[in-house]
């Protein structure tokens, strides 16, 4: 079946440092990958959408300079949180879309804690 893995599951970083997280789709070819953030007491907020062979589209309030994304093939994507501060803490979800089933599958998330 279709699965999405994320690594690491939990991480702690010092304020001002950077953290890279990975997303792996298994069992299907993900034509697009979406990165979401759930801040404390909030819902999932889209950071950016990445489609293979197309430019990555960032949502308002999120930039490539802060959240650079790599999407080199149909099964893998990574995102880095640069210069992380307290407001960047939360659960970062990766959603990979299987076009054959027109469904977005989510990973379990990477929980980021910033000290």
């Amino acid at each position, binding site marked *: 079946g279709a699965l*999405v893995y994320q690594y690491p599951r939990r991480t702690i970083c010092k304020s001002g440092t950077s953290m890279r997280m990975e997303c792996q789709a298994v069992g299907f070819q993900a*034509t*697009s990958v*979406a990165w*979401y953030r759930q801040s404390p007491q*909030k*819902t*999932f*907020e*889209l950071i950016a*959408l990445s*489609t293979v062979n197309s430019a990555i*589209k960032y949502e308002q309030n999120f930039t490539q300079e802060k959240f650079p994304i790599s999407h080199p093939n149909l099964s893998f994507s990574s995102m880095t949180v640069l210069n992380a501060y307290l407001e960047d803490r939360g659960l970062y*979800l990766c*959603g990979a*879309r299987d*076009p054959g089933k*027109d*469904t*977005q*599958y*989510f*990973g*379990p*998330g990477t929980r980021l804690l910033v000290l």
Partner: protein
Amino acid sequence: GDSVTQTEGLVTLTEGLPVMLNCTYQTIYSNPFLFWYVHYLNESPRLLLKSSTDNKRTEHQGFHATLHKSSSSFHLQKSSAQLSDSALYYCALSDRTGNTRKLIFGLGTTLQVQP
């Protein structure tokens, strides 16, 4: 802008009673997709239901929902709650067109089923 509104906070039910979690939406999309995701602690959010055409009921694992464009609603229902239904439920909205399927989530509703 586009938004999703769900039954807020915590819904507590006794096992065996019917479940209804409300979801309404606002969108510029003329042909929206509505979704229900179920999220168990430390697991990936999992797709529970996806809307079909207007006024058509969709069912999965005992849950059902009907997209009503006239009232902009996609309420989640189940005839008899089970203890294993205790989880966080998210209603989400996307456009039917294009390949990216950006999801807009509601705040989530926690369902707690008691014996």
